[in-house]
Structure formats: structure tokens, C-alpha cells
């Protein structure tokens, strides 16, 4: 599988949180050849199961990679000299400073290309030139008269950012929605990795919905699938100029395995052992309270699910130039695959027993 093509297909599809029906068919096509069942649930998550070879009832590992992205939504249609413009608000954690001057797709009755506009600095009063625009200032211009805009666009229509994935040097790429389509790509690579290998556990691969707004798909899919263990895969902060040394990671430095309250120590250790067996370089990430990922939701479904968290280092998060190293995506896929092939019938009882052991001196 060509990782660039995979990422290009995934990131260039516009699907803000709540509008996963745009991206789910794309992921479904990628995963279908590798899995036994696949379907969309009632909140819009895509759930695929690849059966293991152990006798039933088999233990299940859930992999959660969210497929939604940040975006915008139309709040008003306004008129200026016969032309129609759109006011918008954010869907998910959009960085307000970078909305101005973006290219967008308005998902109306038909898809319209537009730009996010306002006045250039020359025409702004001096005291406003250095300040970011708020949503009350910005409009989307689709270049149409009011009547055509009203015929094609309604309040509540989703708007996605539009940006092609581009190659930088080496295996670096830059584009939008690498958060978190990079992880969807990693899960795809994992499923492909498993094709030639045998594994005891069932693998439940979930492309979750509405992570950016409320981790919806994590909570709900963990409930419906009742896995024995789960791993969330999401992007994490890449090192770069200005970034602190703490909890940021080299692009190309390998997957980041997280420790912290959202993570079961047994999963952390299991992922480390899988990396060791592949002689793969990894880093350890930490979170002290809330990981800000699907792991938070997965962990507390039903009577609790031992959960792990794997991160892919990424610079410029929540912008249209999110950047990462494709090697990290590929390694993350292989790491998950290796972890899965190593799972045996005793994995859960072993990691549970380890919690009961006395602290070693």
C-alpha cells in the first residue's frame, strides 16, 4: 500500500464532526478487503471486525481512530449588493487565528468551493491589523449571487477545509485532517499487516465519529462492542521550533506510547514489548489527567476496559498544514499489528494479576 496515496485519499475527503457520512464510505472501501464484517452504527462510527482464530467466544481488541475532522458550519446567509455570503461557526476545536483566507468546500445541496474572506490590512483601521478575525467578521465567499446561494445552501450546512496533501522533503507530508486520518491510515496498515499472519483475538477496528466535539464514537462503540481491551490511536505533538522539550516528539522518531490515567499499565507494557520484538524505536508520552483522546471514553465504557494509547507525532495541529513523517504512520500500523499477533488467551488475566502484585523493590 502506498502510504502517500492512502493519506491523500483520506485527508482530502472533507468530513467535519457529525458529517462522517462523507468519509465512512472511503474508509469502508479501504478496510473491506481485510475484514469479515463492516457496518456503520447509529451515531455514524464505522465498525469492522476481523475474526481471530481462537475458539469462540474469542477475546476482542478494539482499535479506535477517529475519522472526523474540525470544520465549520453555516450560521447565516447574508447579502451584500446582491451577492450571497455565509457566516459560519466552528465545528470542533478550530484555531480561530487560521480560519481567515482558507479554501473551503460548502456541503450544500451541491458542493460549492469558497474562500474565507475579510478585508486586507490596507483597508483595516490600524488598531485591528494585528488581531485575528472572529467568526463575526469572517464570511465565506462562493462567488454567487444571493439567489443562487440561497438555492444551494442552508443554515446548518457543513463546511470543510480544502487543502491537498503535499510532499515535503523525505517522507514528510503536510496537509489538513492528518489529525486523525493518519491514524485511520495506520489502522489500515495494521489490518493489511495482519493478512499474512495469524492472531487469536478478534480485532474490532473502529473509525470513530465526533471525537473532536465529544469523543462520541469512543464512548458508544466501546459500549456496543464490549471489547476486552482497547487502543486509541491519535496524533500527538511533534517537536519543532518553539515547542517545549516536554511531551513533544521527533517527527520520524517512531510511535509514541502513552502512560497516564487513561491507560492501563498492561497495555503500555504490551505495546512496548511489541515494539521491542520489531526492534522499533518508540517514545513514551504522558498525560496527567485527561489524554484528550478517544482513550478517555473507551476506558470507562461498561465495567471498564483496559485501554492503551498510541500517538503519531504531528506539527501544527488543527491547521491546514499539519505535518508528519509517513514512517511514523507505517510504524504505528506495524506496531499495532505486532501487538495483536502477540495477544493470547491469558493476556487480560496476566495484566490484571500484575496489578495485584506487590510493588517490586
Amino acid at each position, binding site marked *: 500500500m502506498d502510504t502517500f496515496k492512502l493519506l491523500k485519499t483520506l485527508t482530502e475527503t472533507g468530513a467535519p*464532526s*457529525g*458529517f462522517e*457520512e462523507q468519509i465512512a464510505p472511503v474508509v469502508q472501501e479501504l478496510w473491506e478487503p481485510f475484514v469479515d464484517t463492516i457496518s456503520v*452504527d*447509529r*451515531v*455514524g*462510527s464505522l465498525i469492522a471486525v476481523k475474526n481471530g482464530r481462537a475458539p469462540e467466544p474469542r477475546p476482542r481488541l478494539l482499535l479506535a481512530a477517529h475519522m472526523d475532522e474540525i470544520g465549520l*458550519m*453555516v*450560521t*447565516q*446567509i447574508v447579502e451584500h449588493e446582491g451577492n450571497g455570503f455565509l*457566516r459560519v*461557526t466552528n*465545528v470542533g476545536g478550530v484555531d480561530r487565528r487560521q480560519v481567515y483566507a482558507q479554501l473551503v468546500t460548502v456541503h450544500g445541496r451541491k458542493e460549492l468551493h469558497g474562500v474565507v474572506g475579510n478585508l486586507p490590512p490596507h483597508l483595516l483601521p490600524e488598531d485591528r491589523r494585528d488581531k485575528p478575525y472572529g467568526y*463575526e467578521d469572517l464570511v465565506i465567499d462562493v462567488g454567487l449571487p444571493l439567489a443562487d446561494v440561497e438555492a444551494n445552501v*442552508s*443554515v*446548518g450546512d457543513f463546511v470543510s477545509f480544502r487543502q491537498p496533501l503535499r510532499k515535503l522533503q523525505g517522507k514528510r507530508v503536510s496537509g489538513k485532517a492528518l489529525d486523525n486520518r493518519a491514524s485511520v491510515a495506520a489502522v489500515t496498515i495494521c489490518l493489511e499487516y495482519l493478512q499474512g499472519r495469524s492472531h487469536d483475538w478478534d480485532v474490532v477496528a473502529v473509525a470513530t465519529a*465526533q471525537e473532536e*466535539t*465529544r469523543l*462520541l*464514537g469512543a*464512548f*458508544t*462503540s466501546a*459500549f*456496543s462492542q464490549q471489547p476486552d481491551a482497547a487502543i486509541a490511536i491519535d496524533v500527538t505533538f511533534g517537536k519543532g521550533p518553539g515547542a517545549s522539550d516536554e511531551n513533544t516528539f521527533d517527527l520520524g522518531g517512531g510511535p509514541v506510547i502513552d502512560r497516564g490515567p487513561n491507560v492501563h499499565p498492561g497495555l503500555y507494557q504490551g505495546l512496548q514489548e511489541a515494539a521491542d520484538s520489531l526492534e522499533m524505536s518508540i517514545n513514551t508520552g504522558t498525560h496527567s489527567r485527561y489524554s484528550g483522546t478517544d482513550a478517555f471514553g473507551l476506558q470507562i465504557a461498561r465495567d471498564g476496559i483496559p485501554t492503551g494509547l498510541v500517538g503519531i507525532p504531528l506539527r501544527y495541529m488543527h491547521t491546514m498544514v499539519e505535518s508528519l513523517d509517513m514512517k511514523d504512520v507505517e510504524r504505528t500500523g506495524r506496531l499495532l499489528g505486532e501487538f495483536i499477533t502477540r495477544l493470547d488467551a491469558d493476556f487480560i488475566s496476566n495484566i490484571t494479576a500484575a496489578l495485584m502484585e506487590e510493588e517490586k523493590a
Partner: protein
Amino acid sequence: MNELIKKLVEAYGPSGFEDGMRDLIRPEVEAYADEIRVDALGNLIAIKNGDGSGLKVMIAAHMDEIGVMVTHVTKEGFLRFTNIGGVLPHNLMGSRVQFANGTIGLIYSDRIEDRGKIHPLNKFYIDVGASSPDDCPVSVGDAAGFVRPFMAQGSRLTAKTMDDRIGCVVAIEAMKRLKSTPHQVYFAFTVQEEVGVRGAMTAANHLDPDVGIALDVTLTGDVPEARPMAISLGKGAAIKVKDSGMIAHAGLVRLMKQRADAASIPYQLEVLDGGSTDARSMQIANAGTAAGCISIPCRYVHSQSETVDAGDVESCIQLLVEILANPIEL
């Protein structure tokens, strides 16, 4: 219908103290329900059976209202209080509140030095006419709701608690008009919405619906210097697409629009920047629910003069009936 509205909007029922509301609503729905339950948190659930061909649909309208709770009685007999839900200090001066035992209190604040500034809530007090803790008819932990009579002026209806007794009215009226439905419909009159959409959470976990529709008020953009919002009083039912707590199920939004179009029911599309509804809880319950909301446009929300339009209320009822009377395909 104004009689029913008046009965519900003038009643007492701050979050956590909804017993009286339940007693008021129960007789209104008894004749139209196949079964009525009250769950452990106090949600009143009226069930209308379907013919077995449809889905499990939960309708949620919350019975509770914002209010205040006594935290301290001064030695002079004045009551300091905290908020129950989103009580706004600038709406409080000179308000009247009523406790469960009927005691009326007047709200005022400590001396105001700067008339341009509003005191925080802990500088307000309630005067119930007592002169010491000994002759004070209420005590710490007692809750009060606001007092304000219902008013109908033309098509505009005003009350202290349109949020969300008008949603309860929409649910009750829809139950009355719904002759038959393919769906198993749970009309949940929920508790504790104003303190974190809590009643709907447990009800949805228990009922495990396929589809959840909240009935609640939304803000409007049609008053002087309003925050821009494409919702106006009198322009029809509001179909929620997004609020700050959830994004409605895209398929359910489409279905609502189709049903409204087909029945020529006026509607508006709602993108709300502040606040959320019981739909937020229903959406994330169990394995997830296809959740949405029919909103009643309302001016001056969380003040004692919440104002809706009777035509919009009618549109909401009609839309709900159209949705429930027909198959739901998402």
C-alpha cells in the same frame, strides 16, 4: 392549550425538586399512554406502543426549571442562596421566588456603590419577612422557583419557565394528537436538565432508544443588538443542527426537514452557539442514539419573561406528530 400552558409554566419545580411537576403532568398524559413509569431519578415516562414495525423513539422534555437554594440564614433572618442551573444575577433584583411550602421571598442585593455594575450571586439575598433563623419558615437546602404569572398577548406567550414547560406542552399535545404510530414511543418528562442534562441520561441508558428527540427552547437573533442567529419568533419550529453540546444526527435532521416540507410546516434551521439540551445525553447513552431536537424559539431565556410564539409551538407539535406517525429511516 393556553390553559395547559398556564398550569405548567406557573408551577413549582426547580431541578431536583420536580415532584409537583410530575403530579401535574401525569393526569394530562394518562389517557393517551399505554403505560406510565416513574424511574429512580424521578423521570416520568409515558409509553405509547407501536405496531412493532418501527423503532424505539425517546422524546424528552424537561420538567425542571432554574431556581435558587438557601445556603445560609443570617441572624437577621435574611437568606443567602446559590443558583440551581443558569441563574443570571442581572435578572434578579426585585424578583420574587416561591418555596415548596408556599413561602414567598423577595430578592435584593447588598448595597450598590456603582450602578453600572452587577453584584455576583453571593451578594444577593432573599427576604421572606423573617427577623431571625427562629421565625424563618424555610431553611438551608430549601429550593425556590421564580414567581411570575403567565401572559398571552396576541400570539406571544410569556412566562417564567417556558424553558422547558413549553416543551412538555408540545409532548403532551403530540401524544393527544398521535392516533397511531409504528414506533414504540417513550415520552420522557425529564428531571435535572438545567444542572447537566442528567435525567435524560439515565432514562436513555434504561430505555435504550434508537432515536432520541429533545423538545426544548432555543435562542433567537431577532431582538435589538442580538448575537447574530438565524432564528426568529414566529417563523416556525426550529430543527436543531448543532449546539455547543452536540451535533445532531445528520440523517435525523434530513428526515425532520422532509417531514416538515411534506406537511407544509414552517421551520427554521438552528445552529446554537451556547447551551445544549437533553439530546446531548441521549446521543451518548449506551451504544449511542440518533439524536436531534425540535426547538421552540424563545426570547429572554433564563429570565422571568421567557417569550415564545403560539404559532411556533403549534408547528413544533405538528412536526413531532408527523415524525412519529410515519416510518423513520435514517
